[in-house]
């Protein structure tokens, strides 16, 4: 999952990458030019708030399924999982499974009712039968916090990618790249809105799948399509033998690391259906049925992609070997590009081209994901906090869209600043934190709102703020932040919480607080509003 490694580990043998730099940069420039053209085209058609927030709700289920996949498969999935499998074998594969199974929660419980009863944001559904201002504020805060953590991880990942793929190791170079990513995402979102962002994500998803498919085919070709042979060679070359194909290399060391794995596993499976940038994608299709179909497409596309990471990861282990992978990046993040160069032929034009293509795909991946995250947080600011809390529902559509655009610029600038500071941080913790916060603060409130009659405003607030605070505080005092060589602040130690992922504690706490907050609440639940929400969410009556 880690798309970045620690600064000290970024000592690179950059000789081979610097040669390919012009090719990689030109391919990247082509992608940027093409997506900006799409964005300008989409911007011309973005007139109403519904266009800006929800792409006019005119995308087909397949288009949205592609875009959902593009929004979901971050650089962490592509480079991180391939690298984790290449170095830790089977334990790397465990991520893929959690990331995929999570979609069933979205499919069975969240996507359709959300599409039926909301308009633009997650807050629309959470606040539906509650007191508007406090719940919208909470939903906005939680959306922005989750998205910023996720954004930070992607921004920091961009810096590391550049170091890996272009051989730029200086601080200035990395800050410049973070700034470039930030400026591009501001342009995509302010000009193109949801329409532009959706098209960028579709293009990226197609590129990523095509790249992975090509490499998977080439890896299997090398082993005469004998998967067992591929696994055997990988195990042999890894130096771990049979253990490479079994769980435990990464997480099996101690009782605590085993608990950490369980915590991570729970956060992954429950986090997806609470990620705001994923949830707002369901508003881009006309009906709940189309939302269901787009999740089905996404499950197919994402599942196929994660199956291919098996071939890529074990292929890198078998064909390149752990020593060379670690020499380039100790976390294994360079394994996929290294494999691309190997498959094309090291030192040949084919190798250079394939490396450049796969590197450009990795950049495209980051850009599409940050655009989706920025849109989710600026939408929530403009629609939940500005229009409904500050202006108490009296803002015009024009004013709301203007607020969304300015929020995009502000969030972009904040992410550039934080991303520049975080450029050397270990991002694994940040992404896992985003999932844990989403599962602790958002998912309980979404499920209670939709399915539990007695849920109250107080329950919603306790659940959102309690889940948010507990997960953030536990991470703050975990080994992710201090006490270990791989921490953000390795020189100090104020970690008293042993797990790197807070989900094991904070997710049950979020559910528990939502329940307690409701039953001890003095106010009666608004049963009329619940009737409205329940009928709407199941039938789609009066849906926007």
């Amino acid at each position, binding site marked *: 999952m880690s798309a970045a490694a620690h600064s000290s580990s970024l000592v690179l043998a950059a000789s081979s990458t610097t040669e390919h730099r012009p090719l990689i940069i030109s391919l990247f420039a082509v992608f940027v030019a093409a997506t900006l053209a799409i964005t300008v085209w989409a911007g011309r058609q973005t*007139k*109403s*708030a*519904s*266009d800006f927030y*929800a792409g*006019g*709700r005119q995308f087909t289920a397949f288009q949205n399924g592609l875009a959902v996949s593009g929004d979901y498969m971050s650089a962490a999935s592509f480079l991180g999982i391939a690298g984790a499998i290449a170095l830790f074998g*089977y334990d790397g594969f*465990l991520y893929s*499974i*959690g990331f*995929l199974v999570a*979609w069933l929660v979205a499919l*069975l*419980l969240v996507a359709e009712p959300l599409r039926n009863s909301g308009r633009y944001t997650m807050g*629309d559904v959470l606040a*539906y039968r509650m007191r*508007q201002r406090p719940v919208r504020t909470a939903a906005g805060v939680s959306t922005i916090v989750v998205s910023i953590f996720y954004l930070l991880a992607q921004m920091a990942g961009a810096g590391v990618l550049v170091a890996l793929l272009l051989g730029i190791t200086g601080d200035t170079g990395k800050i410049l790249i973070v700034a470039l990513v930030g400026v591009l995402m501001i342009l995509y979102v302010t000009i193109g809105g949801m329409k532009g962002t959706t098209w960028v994500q579709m293009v990226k998803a197609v590129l990523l799948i095509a790249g992975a498919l090509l490499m998977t085919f080439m890896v299997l070709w090398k082993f005469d399509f004998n998967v*067992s*042979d591929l*696994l055997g060679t990988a*195990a042999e070359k890894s130096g771990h033998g*049979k253990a490479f*194909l*079994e*769980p*435990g290399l990464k*997480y*099996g060391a101690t009782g605590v690391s*085993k608990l950490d*794995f*369980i915590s991570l*596993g*729970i956060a992954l*499976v429950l986090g997806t259906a609470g990620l705001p940038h994923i949830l707002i994608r369901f508003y881009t299709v006309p009906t709940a*049925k189309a939302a*269901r*179909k787009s999740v*089905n497409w996404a*499950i197919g596309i994402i*599942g196929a992609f*994660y199956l291919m990471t098996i071939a890529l990861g074990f292929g890198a282990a078998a064909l390149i070997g752990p020593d060379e992978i670690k020499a380039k990046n100790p976390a294994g993040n360079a394994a996929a590009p290294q494999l691309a160069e190997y498959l094309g032929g090291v030192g040949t034009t084919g190798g250079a081209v394939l490396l450049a293509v796969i590197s450009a795909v990795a950049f495209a991946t980051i850009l599409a994901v940050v655009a989706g995250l920025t849109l989710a947080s600026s939408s929530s600011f403009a629609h939940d906090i500005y229009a409904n809390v500050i202006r108490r*529902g*009296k*803002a*015009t*559509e024009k004013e709301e869209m203007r607020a969304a655009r300015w929020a995009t610029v502000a969030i972009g600038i904040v992410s550039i600043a934080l991303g520049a500071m975080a450029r050397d941080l270990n991002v694994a913790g940040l992404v896992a934190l985003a999932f844990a916060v989403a599962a602790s603060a958002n998912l309980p409130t979404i499920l209670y709102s939709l399915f539990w009659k007695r849920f109250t405003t107080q329950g919603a607030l306790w659940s959102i703020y309690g889940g948010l605070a507990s997960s953030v505080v536990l991470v703050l005092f975990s080994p992710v932040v201090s006490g270990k060589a791989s921490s953000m602040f390795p020189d100090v130690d104020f970690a008293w919480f042993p797990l790197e992922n807070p989900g094991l504690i904070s997710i049950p706490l979020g559910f528990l607080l939502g329940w307690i907050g409701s039953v001890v609440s003095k106010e009666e639940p608004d049963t*009329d*509003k619940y*009737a*409205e929400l*329940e*009928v*709407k969410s*199941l*039938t789609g*009556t*009066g849906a*926007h």
Partner: protein
Amino acid sequence: MATDAPPPQGSTDNSPAQPTTEVFVETQKSAEFAELRRAHRSFAFPLTVGFIAWYLLYVLLSSYAGDFMGTTVFANFNVAFVFGLAQFATTFLIAWFYSRHAATKIDPKAEAIKSRLEADA
């Protein structure tokens, strides 16, 4: 409706006429709606519990039953690998199974209530 900002001029986000709260409350109490709710909940809730338990079993076995997971099934494939692929397979299968159920048992009921409410509103 208090949920949203009042529809501003020039909006293209036209929503159909909204039934009144009384209509929604009545509908919620109706036998027809109870059947729709049951068609969704009696399918989605147990299935959710089931796939989460199945996934947690996999996570727990990976953590605490390393020897069992390392047992060879055939060639270089062990139990862990087969178990992992089985998670993929069940995910695809459940998605298909739910969609089929929704299309035959949920959608027609939902559609009937929706068109009646929107026609009356």
